[in-house]
Structures are given as C-alpha cells and as structure tokens.
C-alpha cells in the first residue's frame, strides 16, 4: 500500500513579515511543520505498523521547506519529496491543490491513500485536502479521528462533530484529513535522525509536474489579498487592583 502524506511548513513566529504584494514573506521567518500534519504522519506510521505500507511525505514550498521533510523522515516515513518552484509562490488553495494533484498524477500515480492534517495554523482554511480529493475525483472524509480498518480495497474511519459520531467506508484510493489532537506524534529516534541526514530529498519543479505557469502561483490563484491590517475594535479597559474589587465589579454587572 502506498500512502502519501501532504505536509506544510508554517511560520512559528508572531512576528509576521509580508512582501510588497501582501503575500507572506516566508524567506525571513522561523518555520515549523504544521502541528496537525505531524499527527497525520503519526496516523500513517500506525497504519504501516499493521500493514505492508510505504509512506511518502510531500510538501510544497521554498527550498528550506526541506526541513519539514527531514523531520518526517526522522519520524519514520520511507520517502520524501519537495514541490518547489518560484512559480508556485503566492498560490491560494485552488492553485495549491493543482500542484499537489499534479504531484500525485505525475510522480505518485500508484497512491492508495492520501492524508492531510485537517488545517494549517497559518491559513486555517481546511480546504486543500477536500480540493485535492475533488480534483482527483476521489472520495474524502474530513476530521478523521480514528482509522478502524484498512486493506487494499477500502478504509473505514470515524469522524465526529458536536452531536454525532460517524463511521464511513471509502473505497481506495481515497483522501482523509486527520483531525487535530488525536494522534500524538512520536518523537524521532537516533536512527531516524541518521536516516534523515542520509536521505536524498528529491525536488520537483513546475515543468517536472507538467504544469504551466497559469496553473499555479499568483497567476493561477483566483483569490488575492487586497489588504492586511490589524483590526481595531478596542475597548477602554478599567483596571482593578485585586480580587475583591473584581468581585464587586462582577456583582454590579
């Protein structure tokens, strides 16, 4: 079984820098692997423990995004690939999903299961996974918090919301988005770190993915940021000195 886990490098700092076009200036920023993506890797590794599976971690980003691939290899994934081209910069979710789909079609066509983290802490749109599934015409389920069964034919998963717990069966190939805070990611072992240093990280550019520049990046993105600002809806805060005053203030309300 071939599993692809799509992961994302996200900024770790509160000090956000933007380019002149109001896009994120990712070159001058400390970055981490999106936390829930680590949990998606963990979920994939747990599948591998029970089944004969090969896991590939794939990320789209600048060359330094290779750091999150290293982390994935250290955790125990078998392969890693970077989708990297200056033409990809500024992609919105629609353009990003085109690049990720191209990676599946061109480089990993025998994938049985595609996994995502539910959402990224930077954009929090939760759209990329479903978009990829729809574009590839594959079944998908979001907010997966349990994988009940997987074989070469199908996968059954649990997903829940405020009121209900659902069990779904999806024929493979399929896409699942892993819910936050369920699959506690393992820490890499020494061997993992050694592997992550030795591994040769393949990188694919726009042409290698058979894409044109109207598909991706700013050109391929229908949505664009017109303005970014700090919202001002401040109130006048009256400070109290101690709990007693606070209790009195509460009583008045």
């Amino acid at each position, binding site marked *: 079984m071939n599993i692809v886990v799509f992961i994302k490098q996200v900024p770790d700092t509160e000090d956000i820098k933007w380019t002149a076009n109001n896009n994120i200036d990712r070159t001058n920023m400390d970055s981490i692997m999106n936390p829930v993506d680590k949990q998606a890797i963990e979920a994939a590794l747990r599948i591998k423990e029970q089944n004969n599976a090969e896991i590939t971690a794939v990320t789209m980003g600048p060359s330094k995004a290779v750091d999150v691939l290293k982390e994935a290899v250290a955790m125990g994934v078998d392969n890693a690939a970077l989708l990297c081209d200056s033409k990809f910069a500024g992609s919105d979710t629609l353009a990003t999903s085109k690049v990720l789909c191209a990676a599946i079609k061109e480089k990993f066509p025998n994938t049985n299961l595609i996994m995502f983290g539910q959402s990224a802490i930077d954009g929090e749109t939760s759209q990329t996974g479903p978009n990829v599934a729809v574009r590839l015409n594959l079944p998908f389920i979001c907010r997966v918090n349990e994988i009940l069964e997987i074989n070469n034919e199908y996968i059954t998963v649990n997903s829940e919301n405020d009121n209900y717990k*659902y069990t779904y069966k999806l024929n493979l190939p399929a896409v699942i988005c892993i819910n936050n805070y369920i699959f506690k990611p393992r820490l890499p072992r020494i061997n993992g770190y050694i592997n992550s240093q030795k591994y040769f990280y393949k990188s694919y550019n726009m042409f290698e993915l058979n894409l044109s520049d109207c598909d991706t990046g700013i050109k391929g993105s229908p949505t664009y940021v017109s303005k970014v600002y700090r919202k001002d809806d401040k109130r006048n805060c009256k400070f109290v000195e101690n709990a007693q005053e606070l209790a009195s203030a509460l009583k008045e309300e």
Partner: protein
Amino acid sequence: MEPNGILIYGEFTQDYGIRNVVKQLLTKSRELKEKIWNQRICVCLIGPRINYENIISELGSYGADDVIIVSDDRLKEYNHNFHPEIFTQIAKKYPPRIILLGATEQGKEIASYCSTKLETGLTADCSDLDIGENNLLLSTRPTFGGQLTADILCSTFPQMATVMENIFKASQIEHSANAIFNWIDIDKIEKKVELVNIIKKNINTKTIENAKIIVSGGSGACKDNGFALIYQLAQKLHATVAGSREAYERGFITKSQQVGQTGKIVSPDIYIAIGISGANQHLTGIKNSGKIIAVNKDKNAPIFEHADIGIVGDLFEIIPNLIRNLDKKEEDNDQ
C-alpha cells in the same frame, strides 16, 4: 449567461428549520445587493419531500427573492455524495455572481467541493463581507493564526465565501420569495462514500452560543489545576465554561466549547477571559460580548485592549480569591 445574483446554501437545522447562519447571510446579502446593481438573492434548499411553504415565506422575510428547492426523500439527512454535487449543479444552472455558505461543517464541505468543480476562488471562515473595487466581493478574514486581518478579493466568478455563524445579525422585512422547484437525477450521482454508522453523542456541556455568562480559559489556565478553577468559578456564577484554541488543543475543553475563528462566535452579557492573551482569532469570537473581563499576568497582553475590566496578576491567586469574595458577598446578601 452573465453571472447574476447571490446564491446562499439554505442549511437546515435537524428538524428542518432554517439554520441561523442562513438568516444572517440573507440579511447581509440585502446590504450587498444595494451596492451592486440589479442582483437577486437566491437560497438553495436541498432536503426531503416536505411542505416548504412556511420555509419559503420565512426565507422571503429575511430577503430571499427566489428559493430553489431540490427535494427527494433520500435527502433527509446531509449526504456527502449528494448535497455538494446537487448544490454545484444548481450553481452551474443558475450561475451566480456570489455564493455564500455558513462556515459550518456542511457549508465548508460543499464550498470546497463546489469551488473546485467550478474552478473558482473561495475564502473560508469570513468575519465580514462587503463590496470592494470593481464591484467584487470583499471578504474579510483573520489570517496567520489570527494575528492579522486580511481583505480578500476574487478575480473569478462565482466569488465564493463561507461565513462564521453569529457574526452577522439577522433581521426581517416585508418581502416574499418565489419558489423554483428543481429536479436532479440523484441516481446519476456517484456514491463515493458510504455512511456505515451514526451514533448520537450524549452532550452534557451547555452550548456556549446562548450562554449569558461565560468563563473562558486560555493557555495560562492550561497548567496545574487551572481549569478546575475555571469550572469552580463558572459554577459560582452559574456560567458556561469555554476556552481558547489552545485549551481545546490541550484537551481541557471540547471542540463545541472552543471560542474564536475556528470555534464558536459567542455573545454573552459577560465574558470572563482567564489566561487568554487575546490573539485576533479569539477576539473575533468574543467581540459581540456585552462586558469583557480579562485576567492575565501579562499587563501587555492584547486581551486588555479589548476588555472592559482588567486585572493583572496570577490567576492561581486571583480566581480562588475571587471565588471567596463572591461567597462572602452572597453571605452579606443573605443577612
């Protein structure tokens, strides 16, 4: 056909009422309609074969001009295979200028599906909508972990957005809607996902959306027995417990208790934020609150700029003290 109008997904409540977010989107759409010439507001309902008369007149009273109905008894409950595809077919048949959906589980799933099929842009979890340059939809949403707010435009049609529930207020007018019944061949829709089982969860937490008083904990309360204090204080005040994203991430509250951009929008009379620094994404969820009271040890925490009453200090000292003082006040009142 030139794209015209605003198409809204008419999400149902569990007993086939209209979900509040639909009424709120209709109310907002009336405002948007004023700013672009000659647009109609249309709601698409996807549900079982029931009498839609009252629903149509209710939607009309919030500003719907047309109500498109696709009904079939296989559509009693939301279906992963059917609803997104049916909504997309309707959006193709009556190409709108703007498509709005609630940022609910259903709404977000349909929006992702529809925008990919129509190859158009989608802005998720919006906190405001307006009409911007060239009469384009201007969608406002917090970005970058809620640190900043972004105004986003879309260069393709339809322009799609999902909007947080309870961000806008709903209001009614004298107005009625036309009904348009549509038939879609459901048998032709590919069934990719099979629902094997549903279990209703026992919910014992009070819903935070309707709470009058909320005691809410953030990262500061996620250590030691911080949340035990939050619950104690809530009990004392007959309040409902909520929390920040971090409190959810760390397992102190459930998803339905999470306040903010990716959680719930609340509007209590009193919101008590304990150990919450006040990231933008959290503030989005509380700005409709009556009084906001903040307890934080960092006097520079942004929450204080958005609070009415603040106290700087250690919550592990302040909250037990506060509870004791409230007890004392009760005794005083009893005498």
